[in-house]
């Protein structure tokens, strides 16, 4: 900028400055990318092997991705042809988020090396270069805000739009798989930083809003693509280690989704929900033919699923019938009590303090693997030339259960009964004045939630091969427990399908991956929930109703306006 600014109008000077800043951001992004090809440390003690020149590894890959993302966004903001789709609603805020992502990932890596290996001396010059380079894109914070209304998206042929959806779910599968497959805590933390900021940037840039518009147009394609992507997960795995994590995530997410009917739709605070999972699991264990079971029977799986679900249903009605006549907090207290009663009762039915049914605290071990027509779930099978471990079988089975729960949730949610649930939640007096039998409708929600949890429980018993009372407590370090289930629903977003799935995934992966947090985990979640309630009470993925409920001011009145921050497919059960 050698021209004399006084000769220019302020507008052009401002424009020139903006352009220069954008170029600087792009250059910073590129420099960050380049720095990942250097060695950052000289010992291989830090996992991921960051010692090699010309070949990024481990956390460097994440930095590389974050840097590339910054560069792309910066180029898009400069109006480079073919990148305009990246920034439909303005680039400045998105660039800031992306820059923070690159900066965060890089600095986290560098600091992690220094802390883990005991000092900055362990850094190669490459590490310092990376730290400096990744700070350059932060100049994006000097950019003027250029948020605008998204223009009309360019018309694409429908096959291309469908292709976009498929590609997005493919990418989604890759990203999630990468996260589940991360081998050490540092990599997972870096992954969270990179993905979190990248998502924030995409939301700010309006790409997510456009995508959700697209998925709303092709609902069927979206749903199929989502489940195909989910079903493809075990085919990407070589070992069973991460498939087991994925199965547990699915169980946790399914139960959270069931709880979402009770809490999110009908507004009944259930603090003992995990007990229904336990009822299902114990029932399945007792009729599984396990040597430790008090009953010497072995039901076929379909029968034990039905028995487990029916037992949960009965318990749901027994607990719900007397308490659902009351309003508000009483239900929370009673369900909390029921949850604890269940756990303690299971611990006491050991032949000493009560009849011998459950082996008390030792639980019921040796639950056999499922078998369908000679297809044993406990053995690896080869499908399409790819060897699937035993947990892959359970993964696919659990996926089916989850699809069932998703269907139940979205169908029940958008029907006469679902409207009645929401009406009861909004204003019970008015709802009864509209002819809704509040007690009956609430009992249906409660019993349905219990049944779905019991259903998931029957599969869980076989996945874990053992059930013990301690798996079903109110709060504990390992999900699913009642507190975590509720947290998953609230964190993800009440009343949505994708919300609890996201919430459950995060709440399961974080403790599973960040073992070092162990002691501080509950503290961390407590703080995270408080922060969330302060800044985003409607959850990570909000449905429109919740968004309005929690943000009194600045309400968008136009009904069809895409709300910022709303995720993919949120309208499914929201409306």
């Amino acid at each position, binding site marked *: 900028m050698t021209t004399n600014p006084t000769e220019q109008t302020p507008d052009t000077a401002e424009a020139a400055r903006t352009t220069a800043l954008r170029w600087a951001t792009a250059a910073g992004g590129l420099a960050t990318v380049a720095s990942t090809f250097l060695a950052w440390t000289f010992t291989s003690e830090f996992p991921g092997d960051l010692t090699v020149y010309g070949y990024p590894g481990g956390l460097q890959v994440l930095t590389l991705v974050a840097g590339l993302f910054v560069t792309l966004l910066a180029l898009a903001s400069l109006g480079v042809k073919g990148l305009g789709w990246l920034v439909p609603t303005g680039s400045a805020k998105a660039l800031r988020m992306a820059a923070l992502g690159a900066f965060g990932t890089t600095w986290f890596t560098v600091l992690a090396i220094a802390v883990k290996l005991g000092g900055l001396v362990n850094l190669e010059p490459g590490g310092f270069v990376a730290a400096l380079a990744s700070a350059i894109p932060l100049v994006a914070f000097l950019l003027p805000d250029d948020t605008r209304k998204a223009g009309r998206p360019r018309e694409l042929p429908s096959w291309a739009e469908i292709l976009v959806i498929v590609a997005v779910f493919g990418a989604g599968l890759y990203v999630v798989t990468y996260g589940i497959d991360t081998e050490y805590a540092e990599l997972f933390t870096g992954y969270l930083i990179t993905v979190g900021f990248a998502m924030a940037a995409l939301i700010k840039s309006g790409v997510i809003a456009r995508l959700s518009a697209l998925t709303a147009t092709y609902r069927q394609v979206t749903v199929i693509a989502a489940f195909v992507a989910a079903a493809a997960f075990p085919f990407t795995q070589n070992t069973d280690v991460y498939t087991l994590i994925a199965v547990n995530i699915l169980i946790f997410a399914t139960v959270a989704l069931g709880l979402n009917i009770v809490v999110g739709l009908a507004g009944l605070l259930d603090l003992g929900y995990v007990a229904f999972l336990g009822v299902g699991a114990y029932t399945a264990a007792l009729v599984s033919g396990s040597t430790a079971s008090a009953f010497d029977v072995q039901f076929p799986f379909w029968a034990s699923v039905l028995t487990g679900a029916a037992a949960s249903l009965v318990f749901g009605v027994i607990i719900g019938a007397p308490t659902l006549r009351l309003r508000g907090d009483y239900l929370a207290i009673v369900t909390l009590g029921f949850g604890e009663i269940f756990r303690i009762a299971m611990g006491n039915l050991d032949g000493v303090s009560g009849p011998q049914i459950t082996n008390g605290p030792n639980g019921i071990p040796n639950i056999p693997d499922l078998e369908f027509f000679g297809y044993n779930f406990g053995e690896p099978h080869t499908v399409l030339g790819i060897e699937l471990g035993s947990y892959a079988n359970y993964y696919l089975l659990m996926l089916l259960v989850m699809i069932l729960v998703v269907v139940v949730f979205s169908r029940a949610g958008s029907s006469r*009964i679902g409207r009645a649930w929401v009406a009861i939640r909004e204003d019970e007096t008015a709802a*009864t004045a509209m002819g809704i*039998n509040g007690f009956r409708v609430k009992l249906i929600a409660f019993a349905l939630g219990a049944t779905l949890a019991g259903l998931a429980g029957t599969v869980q018993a076989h996945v874990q091969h053992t059930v013990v009372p301690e798996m079903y407590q109110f709060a504990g370090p390992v999900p699913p427990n009642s507190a975590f289930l509720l947290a998953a629903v609230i964190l993800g977003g009440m009343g949505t399908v994708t919300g609890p799935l996201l919430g459950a995934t995060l709440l399961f992966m974080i403790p599973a991956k960040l073992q070092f947090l162990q002691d501080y985990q509950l503290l961390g979640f407590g703080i995270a929930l408080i922060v969330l309630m302060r800044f985003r009470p409607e959850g990570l993925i909000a449905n429109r109703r919740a968004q309005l409920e929690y943000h009194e001011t600045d309400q968008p009145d136009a*009904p069809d306006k895409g709300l910022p921050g709303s995720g993919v497919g949120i309208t499914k059960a929201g409306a």
Partner: protein
Amino acid sequence: MKVMTTTTTDKSAVPVLEASGVTMRFGGLVAVHNVDLTVRAGEIVGLIGPNGAGKTTFFNCLTGLYVPTEGKVTYQGNVLPPKPHLVTTAGVARTFQNIRLFANMTVLENVLVGRHTRTKEGLWSALLRGPGFKKAEAASHERAMELLEFIGLAEKADHVARNLPYGEQRKLEIARALASDPGLLLLDEPTAGMNPQETRAAEELIFAIRDQGIAILVIEHDMRFIFNLCDRVACLVQGEKLVEGTPEVVQGDERVVAAYLGTPFEGAPGAEEAAEVEAAEAASSGAGSGSGSLKKSGSGSAKESGTTGTEGEAQ
């Protein structure tokens, strides 16, 4: 005052609602005492009375929200069950004094909730989504849109109820009540807080509802509105029915005027008292800007300030 009421009162018309000897006690407090009221088919009946007279309590007795301590309420010859949802199912719909919409649901959804009693689809049919379910849903939608058309909110069907302006929220509440295909509609202060134009529109709307063959019982403070609208008016004071009759009769009744405006003291001439009041008002002139609106047919706020005299004694 007197305007064209398209009176169609026919003394021989079948009674839709019959309340006889309704008494409601809350502990020692008798909120409603031995009230009889009949609403006949095709009739608009008004219920007036100063604040705290027990009008809303009486309403709640009719709609099953309260179970009357004594007396019985019949709808089309059948005793009404003591549960609000069963009362609605029987054919009595209501609106609320303080608007109770489902604020975070859309306008259309609000009306669809009103259809609840007239549809049967339970959980199973919702999950299985058979042809019966789709047909019923489509029919509900159609009826709901019809009602929104009727009250003039069709183009706002997808708006969230809380974002509607106040007058439209009142209208939507009426549409929601109408969605249950009632034979009797109970309106609790439908024009509270409305400006004169909106009140006029509400009047038209209520006449239109009556013309569909729905009997209407309405609580209101706006005298001009009620005397224009109703075929019969009953006045409740301190839980008891003071008088019932045509608007002219009630309007001319001294006791009603006394209940609303207070009785002058026997010995004290009006002029003296008025001077006293004026002096008091002058002293506290900074406090109230509405002191000039002590008109008989003014808006709700004026009415309230006009009734405070008796109120204080009553409570």
